[in-house]
């Protein structure tokens, strides 16, 4: 049984995990860098340990230090959150070797899904449709051009070790492909230690729709329906909702079934998400699998009434899932917006001192927050400072509630994307559910230039 959990993460997700642990009577250990001493999650935990300077390699990615804190504090499990060490198979192995439960899947599955080329192969073998493209790493720009000619432009050039919007670029012709191939190979080598590249056809008018999975250690796998996360900037999500306003019940069932089959074929355990691209005819294609809790998990919690962190702990304890697919129903509609410390037009980061941080309050308004008033947002980590989640009986009600909540959300001292979020939720195309991954480019940025 897990009695004490170390959270190897920071910010809002650390606070989110601590909250569930408190409710369940599980003790918590927070770790923090010198830049995060005043972060709210640090004082929420039963114990907290300074693990190093601000830079991630010396703090949140410092495996030796984190494991020594786990042993010193007597934690019997580690929750990795998202990002940082959450998808490191090596870290999971080190935890197990020290007799500490890693709250997540087995390391071999994490490693396989982390290599985007291996993941495509595994999905193809499990009969899950994948985006048309290369089966293996592409050796040279010449080989890339040959394949591009076969599948046709535009094409996404991606790093095998990338993911989460990093290490990918769309190219429209041979010239762009050669240039991008050379620079991205170098960049991927520097960033990820692996320069392997592969190609995927760019799906037109695509939506990003993902399925939340839960799998216990006894072979039971269920899905908690979909989240639509098509509204993105710089290939990173900004607004997520559940259910998708686009897919039919038949497609929902097909996608859920495909995701469950994939998890079974992989021998997957714990919470995971399979991301798909869905075209305008509701054809869906495997994009990647995230072997951890997602940033946007709250929208699924809101429409199912479940606590995904609690279920992760129960699975890690070896318990059997008490829910079957037939028990699950979608209740209402939930939307999450990510509040970023950034310029709402250029999307450039805006670190600095927050003077005022007044959050909206009300029924069916949920906040997951990393900061407070009178707080320094540092340049060391990603720019997300808060998530606002609203729920309505239906999508129109959720949108109207979201707009009201955003109008009440006051952040001063730094720039945030709240003006962008307000613009989008008020947009006719957004209200109609006309959301594709090109939404920000086609409707938001174009609108700004017109005004």
């Amino acid at each position, binding site marked *: 049984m897990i009695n004490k959990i170390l959270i190897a993460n920071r910010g809002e997700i650390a606070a989110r995990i601590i909250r569930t642990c408190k409710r369940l009577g599980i003790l918590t250990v927070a770790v923090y860098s010198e830049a995060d001493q005043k972060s709210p999650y640090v004082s929420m935990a039963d114990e907290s340990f300074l693990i190093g300077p601000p*830079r991630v390699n010396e703090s949140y990615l410092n495996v030796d230090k984190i494991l020594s804190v786990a042993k010193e504090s007597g934690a019997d499990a580690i929750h990795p959150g998202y990002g940082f060490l959450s998808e490191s198979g090596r870290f999971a192995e080190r935890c197990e070797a020290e007799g500490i439960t890693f709250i997540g899947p087995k390391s071999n599955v994490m490693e396989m899904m982390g290599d985007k080329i291996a993941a495509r192969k595994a999905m193809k073998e499990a009969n899950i449709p994948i985006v048309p493209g290369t089966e293996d790493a592409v050796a040279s720009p010449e080989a890339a051009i040959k394949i591009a000619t076969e599948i046709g432009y535009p094409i996404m050039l991606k790093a095998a070790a990338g993911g989460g919007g990093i290490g990918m670029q769309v190219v429209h012709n041979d010239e762009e492909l050669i240039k991008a191939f050379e620079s991205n190979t170098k960049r991927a080598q520097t960033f990820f230690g692996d320069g392997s590249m592969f190609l995927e056809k760019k799906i037109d008018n695509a939506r990003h729709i993902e399925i939340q999975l839960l799998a216990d250690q006894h072979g039971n796998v269920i899905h908690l329906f979909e989240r639509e996360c098509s509204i993105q900037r710089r290939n990173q999500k900004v607004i997520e909702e559940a259910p998708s306003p686009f897919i039919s019940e038949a497609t929902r069932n097909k996608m859920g079934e495909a995701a469950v089959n994939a998890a079974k074929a992989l021998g997957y355990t714990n919470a995971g998400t399979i991301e798909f691209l869905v075209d305008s005819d509701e054809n869906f294609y495997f994009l990647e699998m995230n072997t951890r809790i997602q940033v946007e998990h709250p929208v699924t919690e809101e429409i199912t009434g479940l606590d995904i962190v609690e279920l992760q702990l129960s699975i890690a304890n070896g318990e059997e899932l008490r829910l079957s697919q037939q028990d699950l129903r979608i209740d209402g509609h939930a939307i999450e917006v990510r509040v970023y410390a950034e310029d709402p037009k250029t999307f450039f*980061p805006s*670190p600095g001192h927050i003077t005022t941080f007044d959050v909206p309050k009300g029924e069916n308004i949920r906040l997951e927050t990393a900061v407070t008033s009178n707080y320094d947002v540092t*340049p060391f*980590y990603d*720019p997300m400072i808060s998530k606002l989640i609203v729920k309505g009986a239906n999508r129109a009600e959720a949108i109207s509630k979201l707009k009201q909540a955003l109008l009440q959300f006051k952040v001063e001292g730094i720039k945030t994307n709240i003006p962008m979020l307000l613009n989008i939720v008020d947009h006719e195309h957004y209200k109609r559910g006309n959301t594709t991954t090109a939404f920000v480019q086609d409707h938001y940025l174009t609108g700004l230039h017109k005004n």
Partner: protein
Amino acid sequence: MTEVKANMAGNVWKIVVSEGDSVEADQDIVILESMKMEIPIATEEAGTVKELKVAEGDFVNEGDVLAVIE
């Protein structure tokens, strides 16, 4: 003479020119990394790179001088 300054706090991820290089206006001099984003910092004026004031891996604050172009 023109100074190339950081427009936000961050780490110097890459220096893409060397001292003595001739550079054009709007050419990138340094790539900063802030909040997991690469921020290219360009020179406003053409000239020769007289001095690089930072090294890769350095932390810089908004307004810090990164390079001097002459």
